[in-house]
């Protein structure tokens, strides 16, 4: 049975999280709330992005879903199986890929790493050999298969991470910041792989800081901060949520007209740009139409409106916290 078929047979959602809470109680310190009653449903076959700053609760959620951490409240199910009560049913159907250098046996070869994880997924020997060879080819490491992982670049390690996560033929993949530290080309290749996995019908939960990544591969995105879900939408819809922050770039507008526009209700700023144009930002729904009408009436024809990118949505929604976590 293919992954697509087996997933098609599954009724309901691939991941279902209800009022999930998680509190950490460090020694001699105040308790820290990592997740505060979040709810989330990820349909089978969806690539779901989880966006949030450091400490937002993304990794905590992934750890709970992958059964290595227990929640302090609420429930979470993967393909209908409770991650607390039914770990034996959950573990064979999930794959975990953590970002960064760790997560591999660096003194073993790429092939030995995959074969070991295949054995831990209780695969027959012949299948282990076949699948590890297939996956090494798929992630472009076939020429390095028998080289020690400690000699790999970060991008190669990340691809091997993904191959390892697929050794058990996971129906649900948790990718925790998998492209951290990758160069742009490696990142693009990795995103192509994610798209291929989606086409195979796998469900993917992808935590990331990378807006381009989320925008390019995710069907839906959840913004999370301080352990709370702020919004869950498609990347495009999420952009329209703050359409009140729409921008209008104007070229050749007289200063008097710009001053008049700046005084209109709902206009939050007019900022000269380096290329000589002026960016007008609005902060109220409906204000854009009023500004556009006034500019056209004032004889301006060179203007352009744009929706904010996901990055701007992220910054507007979560706020510019800088390095604060």
């Amino acid at each position, binding site marked *: 049975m293919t992954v697509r078929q087996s997933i098609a047979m599954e009724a309901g959602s691939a991941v279902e999280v209800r009022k999930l809470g998680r509190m950490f109680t460090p020694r001699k310190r105040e308790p820290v709330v990592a997740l505060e009653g979040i709810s989330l449903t990820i349909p089978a076959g969806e690539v779901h992005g989880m966006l949030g700053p450091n400490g937002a609760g993304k990794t905590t959620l992934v750890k709970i879903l992958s059964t290595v951490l227990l929640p302090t409240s609420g429930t979470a199910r993967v393909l209908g199986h409770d991650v607390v009560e039914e770990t034996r049913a959950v*573990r064979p159907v999930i794959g975990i890929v953590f970002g960064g250098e760790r*997560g591999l046996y660096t003194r073993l070869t790429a092939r030995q790493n995959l074969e070991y994880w295949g*054995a*831990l997924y209780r695969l027959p020997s012949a299948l282990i050999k076949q699948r590890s060879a297939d996956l090494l080819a798929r992630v472009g490491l076939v020429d390095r298969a028998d080289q020690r992982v400690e000699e790999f670049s970060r991008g190669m390690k990340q691809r091997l991470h993904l191959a390892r996560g697929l050794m058990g033929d996971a129906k649900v993949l948790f990718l925790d910041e998998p492209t951290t530290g990758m160069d742009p080309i490696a990142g693009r290749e990795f995103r192509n792989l994610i798209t291929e996995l989606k086409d195979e019908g796998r469900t993917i939960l992808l935590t990331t800081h990378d807006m381009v990544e989320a925008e390019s591969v995710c069907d839906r995105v959840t913004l999370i901060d301080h352990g709370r879900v702020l919004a869950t939408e498609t990347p495009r819809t999420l952009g329209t949520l703050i359409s009140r922050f729409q921008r209008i770039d104007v070229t050749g507008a007289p200063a008097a007209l710009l001053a008049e526009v700046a005084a209109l209700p709902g206009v939050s700023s007019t900022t000269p740009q380096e290329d000589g144009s002026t960016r007008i930002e609005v902060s109220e729904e409906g204000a854009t139409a009023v500004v556009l009408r006034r500019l056209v009436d004032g004889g301006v024809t060179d203007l352009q409106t744009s929706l904010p990118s996901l990055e701007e949505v992220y910054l507007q929604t979560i706020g510019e916290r800088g390095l604060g976590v």
Partner: protein
Amino acid sequence: MRAFLAGARAQLRFMTAYPDSLIPFFTAPLFTIVFMLVFKHAGRQDLTAYAAIAPVFIALWWLALFNSGWTITIERWNGTLEMLVASPSSFGAVVFGKIAATTAVGTVSFFEAWLVARLVFGTAVSIHHWGAFLLTVLATLGAMAGTAVGMAALFVLARNAVTFSNSASYPFYVLGGILVPVSLLPHWVRPLSDVVFLSWSADLLRATLRPAPIHRLWPHVGMVALLGACGYAVGLAALRVILVRVRKSGELSTT
């Protein structure tokens, strides 16, 4: 069984990749020289069996214990401990397989120690009861791996499992009577010695090196196996409890 074999196979690869874990193969011949010299200059050639067996037990037990701690530590360093726990295989069975493979390889130290005895001191170590010897070695290896799983459970809780595992080996050397006979220990220590499988193993192995018939072979082998099985059962139960505990506290990868 698959988890056990997966752990065992992986450990054999790790042992070549991480030669640090092979230290006992260098120390066993040295211990043999030290012990043989002490007994020889004390005029106690009758204790040759002690000198021949002690380095092997030290090597085997060190390998078992060190690797149970090392396994946990190396998984933490590699960032694989959480993924290992989240895999469909039993964590305890994987660890058991790893330690069993290590101790099995550790039997090489028998040949090392006895070769040194022969070449350096001209003392031939003869096995007079081969069947009993092999049976005891098998039971001992199983018991060592089983007991080390129990220790691994504690190492999951320890922040520095390797240091803990290094120091945890010495009480077993004393209580196991592997060099100093248990009969020479204070009376109040002896009951403790009875629940350490090493003391039964050491007595049996020394007996197989003497021509005299072995008394109560099966009950002694049974005790080794029973204590090893108890260690494994307690270890598995402890591992389950401790894994739940660290999953609750969130300290699986950090303790």
